[in-house]
C-alpha cells in the first residue's frame, strides 16, 4: 500500500490550506487579516495573470489542513486583532443596554457617586487630621519630662519663720513658713506704696505659706532669705529689698517675685508646677 502523499513538491506548494511559513521579514506569505466586528477583511494579492505564474497551481490530490502551534504560523497583526474584553459583569445594570438612553438613570447614578465620594472625603480628612496631630504631638514633652516639671514638698519639714530653697525647673524655689506677725504685717501694707501693687492675699493660697521663685526680677540673681529691711529677702547684686510676701519694696527690681502655680493636695504637702 502506498500512502498517497498529500505533500506537494517544491514547485506546487499549494495544498496545505492553513499552514503557512512566514517567508521572511520583508515578505509574508499570509494575507493580512483584519477582523472588524463580524467582518473579516483579507488582503488578497491576486497576481496570477501569466502562463508561468499559473504553472503548478492545480491541486493533484485532496487537501489536508494543518494548524500549528508555535511553529511556522500566520502573521499576527496585533493592533487589529486584539479585542477589548467584555466588562459587562462589572458595569451598572442601568447602562448595560446599548439601545437605551443612559440619561434616565443619570441622576440616580450621579447622586450615588457624589454621596459616596463626599462621605469618603470627609472620613479621610478626619482620619488625616487625627494622624497628623498624633505625629505632631509626639514631638511635645514626654511624660518623664513633664513629671520632672513638678515638685512635691513636705510642709512639716519647714518650721515657722524658716525659708527653704528647692531646685525646681532649674530655678530656686523659696518656700517660706510665715509667722502670724509676718502675715499680719504683709496684709496691712497699703498698695499705694508698692512698685508692683499686689495684695498679699492675691499672692498666696494659704497665708502661712508663701511660695515664690527665687529669681530677682531685676537681673536674675538669687535673693538671700531673711535679709533686708522689710523682713523678707535681699538681693545682694544690686540691693533689691523684698518683703515677706516677695513683693519689691526697695531697690532696682521692677516686679514682685514670681509666684508659680501650686496646690495643696493635703495639709502637709504642696505640689508646685
Amino acid at each position, binding site marked *: 500500500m502506498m*500512502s*498517497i502523499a498529500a*505533500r506537494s513538491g517544491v514547485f506546487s506548494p499549494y495544498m496545505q*490550506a492553513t499552514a503557512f511559513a512566514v517567508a521572511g521579514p520583508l515578505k509574508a506569505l499570509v494575507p493580512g487579516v483584519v477582523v472588524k466586528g463580524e467582518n473579516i477583511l483579507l488582503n488578497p494579492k491576486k497576481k496570477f495573470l501569466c502562463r508561468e505564474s499559473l504553472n503548478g497551481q492545480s491541486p493533484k490530490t485532496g487537501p489536508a489542513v494543518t494548524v500549528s502551534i508555535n511553529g511556522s504560523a500566520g502573521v499576527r497583526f496585533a493592533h487589529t486583532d486584539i479585542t477589548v474584553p467584555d466588562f459587562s459583569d462589572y458595569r451598572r445594570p442601568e447602562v448595560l443596554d446599548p439601545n437605551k438612553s443612559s440619561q434616565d438613570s443619570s441622576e440616580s447614578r450621579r447622586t450615588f457617586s457624589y454621596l459616596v465620594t463626599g462621605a469618603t472625603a470627609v472620613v479621610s480628612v478626619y482620619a488625616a487630621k487625627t494622624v497628623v496631630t498624633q505625629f505632631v504631638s509626639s514631638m511635645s514633652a514626654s511624660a518623664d519630662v513633664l513629671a520632672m516639671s513638678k515638685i512635691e514638698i513636705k510642709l512639716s519639714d519647714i518650721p515657722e519663720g524658716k525659708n527653704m530653697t528647692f531646685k525646681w525647673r532649674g530655678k530656686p524655689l523659696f518656700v517660706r513658713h510665715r509667722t502670724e506677725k509676718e502675715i499680719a504685717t504683709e496684709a496691712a501694707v497699703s498698695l499705694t506704696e508698692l512698685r508692683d501693687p499686689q495684695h498679699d492675699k492675691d499672692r498666696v493660697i494659704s497665708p502661712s505659706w508663701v511660695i515664690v521663685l527665687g529669681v530677682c526680677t531685676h537681673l536674675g540673681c538669687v535673693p538671700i532669705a531673711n535679709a533686708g529691711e522689710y523682713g523678707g529677702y535681699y538681693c545682694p547684686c544690686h540691693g533689691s529689698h523684698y518683703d515677706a510676701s516677695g513683693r519689691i519694696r526697695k531697690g532696682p527690681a521692677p516686679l514682685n517675685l514670681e509666684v508659680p502655680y501650686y496646690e495643696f493636695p493635703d495639709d502637709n504637702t504642696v505640689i508646685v508646677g
Partner: protein
Amino acid sequence: SCVLCFSFPQTRFYAAQAARKVEVTGFHPQDVQVTRLPSGLVIASLENYSPASKIGVFIKAGCRYETPENQGVTHLLRLASGLVSNLHICVFLCSVTSSRENMTYTVDCLRDDVDTVMEYLINVTTAPEFRPWEVSDLTPKVKVDKAQAAQSAQIGVVEGLHEAAYKNALCNSLYCPDHMINNIHSEHLHQFVQNNFTSARMALVGLGVDHTVLKQVGEQFLNIRSGAGTTGAKAQYRGGEIRLPSTSSLVHSAVVSQSAAAGTSEALAFSVLQHLLGAGPHVKRGAGVASKLVQGVSKATADPFDVTAFNTSYSDSGLFGVYTISQAAAAGDVIKAALAQVKAVADGGVTAADLTRAKAQLKCHYLMSLETSEGLLEAMGSQALTDASYQSPEEISKKIDNISLTDVANAAKTFVSGKKTMASSGNLVKTPFVDEI
C-alpha cells in the same frame, strides 16, 4: 624559487600526504519497526540518529466520521489542540493535521525532551478538557480560518467536489459549515473524541525515538479508550455537480469520477495514470512537455492555463479526474481538451515509453516525499493505520513496476465511462455543465 623557500620556511606539503581513512563510527542504518499492541494500537518507529525527534499520533478521526449533528467538529478539534492547559513547555513545535480520513497530532522536539513532549501528546489525545468558554472562544478563529480558505479557489473547488460526489461521509468538508459555526459545543468535541479516539484506531509513530519507549507509552497511556469506536459509514458515490460563481476571471474546474480505494492495485494504476497524464510541473519554468494534458490543452487555447490529473484515494473509495485552471472565456475548450486526452489514453494511445516515464515519475514522487521527516512520518503513520505494517520503498517501487499498460488503460476507461462529478468556480459563463462534457 630559492628566495621563496627562504621567505616561507614552513611549507606544509599537505597535498602530498596520503588521504586519511575515515572510519565508520558505528551508526548503522536501521529499519522501521512496527508492533501492534493487544489493544489495537499500532506503534511504529525508526531510529534515524537525528538530534531532533518527531512523534505523531495518527487517528482515524478525519472529517468523514462527522455526523450531521456535529458537522464541523473536526475543524474545532484542530483549533482546540492549542487549548491544552499545561502548554508552558515551548521548546517544541506541534501541529495538528487533519484530512478526510485521519487526524494527526505531531510534535517536534529535541531528542532529550521526548518525555515532556509525550505528556502533551497524551494529554491532547486521551484527556482533552475542552472547557466550554474556551471552545466558544474558538468561533472567531474558525471564521478567520474559513475566510482564509475562501481566498484559495482550489480549496473551494476541491471541497465542493467532494460535497457533490458523495452522499455521506466523504462529502463532509474539512472546514466547519456556516450553519454550524456557533452550534458546536464542548459536548460535541468530547463525544467525538470518545467515539473516535480509540486505541484500535490510533497509531503512535516516532522518528528518532526508541521503539521500546514508544511501546511503553502506548501500553500505559494510550489505552484509555479501547475498542473500535463507532464505525464510519461506507461512502456512497453519487456523482453530481456544484458551481461556485464568482467574479474571478480565472475558472477553476475539476471533473472526476469514482476510482479505487487506497491500497488496491487499481489505486496504484490510477496513480500511474495520473503521472502519465501529467501531475504538476517537474522542471522549473518548463513548458510541460512531458504532460499529455498540458500538450493537449495548449492546442485548444493560447491563454494562460494550468491542468493536472487529480487523484485521491480513501479507505473505501477514491476520485480520479482532471483539474483545470483557465481564463473564463476558454474554460469550456480547456476542459474538453483535457478530457479528450484522458479518452485518448483509454482508447490505447499510450506508448511503453510514456508508461516507463510515468512509473519513474511516480516512484520519484513517492521517494522524494520520504526524504523529509514530515513526509516519512506521514507515510509511516498512514501505513501503520491502514494495515499495521510498513512497506519499504523498494517493495513499493516493485509494485509500481508491476503495473502494466492494460491496467492503466482500464483505469482510464473507468474514468471515461463512470458517472462524472464536476465542481467549478469563477466566472462560469462559458463553463459547460457536467452533462455537456
